[in-house]
């Protein structure tokens, strides 16, 4: 069990949804190897699609940057231990969507 606390970097989600997403992240980290980012991402996306309807997108990893368009109220970027989590849902029309550029900024890259 990873004892790490989730640290929200950026979000526009309601509090309740935030808590649920972070709980899913902890569940995923318990169920999968920390190196298996894809299974962790899969787990989270699947649960959110079931709970809040499709189509959620999930990015998990230690080193990435991204630029996305998401439905307002359905975006969160947070960290648990060494892992970064980007979770968002697509919007059906542009007036309800917002563009976000987020990433894990590092001064130097560890090449190990």
């Amino acid at each position, binding site marked *: 069990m990873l004892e790490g606390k989730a640290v929200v970097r950026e979000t526009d989600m309601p509090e309740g949804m935030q808590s649920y997403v972070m709980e899913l992240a902890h569940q995923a980290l318990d169920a999968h190897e920390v190196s298996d980012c894809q299974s962790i991402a899969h787990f989270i996306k699947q649960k959110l699609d079931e709970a809040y309807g499709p189509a959620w997108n*999930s990015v998990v990893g230690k080193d990435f940057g991204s630029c996305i368009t998401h439905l307002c109220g359905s975006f969160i970027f947070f960290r648990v231990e060494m892992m970064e989590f980007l979770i968002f849902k697509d919007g059906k029309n542009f007036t309800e969507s917002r563009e976000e550029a987020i990433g894990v900024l590092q001064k130097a890259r560890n090449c190990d």
Partner: protein
Amino acid sequence: MLEGKAVIEDTDMPDKMQIQAMASASEALDLYDVFDCTSIAAHIKKEFDTKYGSGWQCVVGSSFGCFFTHSKGTFVYFTLETLNFLIFKGASYLI
């Protein structure tokens, strides 16, 4: 100019769009430092939003996994130099 060649790992995009994706990536790597994944991703996403309509998503990095739903014919995952690039249009944007 980075001389590296892009390698397509997986895609369901038309060939021309694939070429555009790799060109945008090379362009971004000329403009930004290889560590600045966010700016690289932003550059590519904006290129695609401009050329192919809004709603594109772009993830760039050397260590990530993800799971997503995309519109048909709008997905490409490739490597260029030390980075991995994922570009797709979200499922909600029906063409």
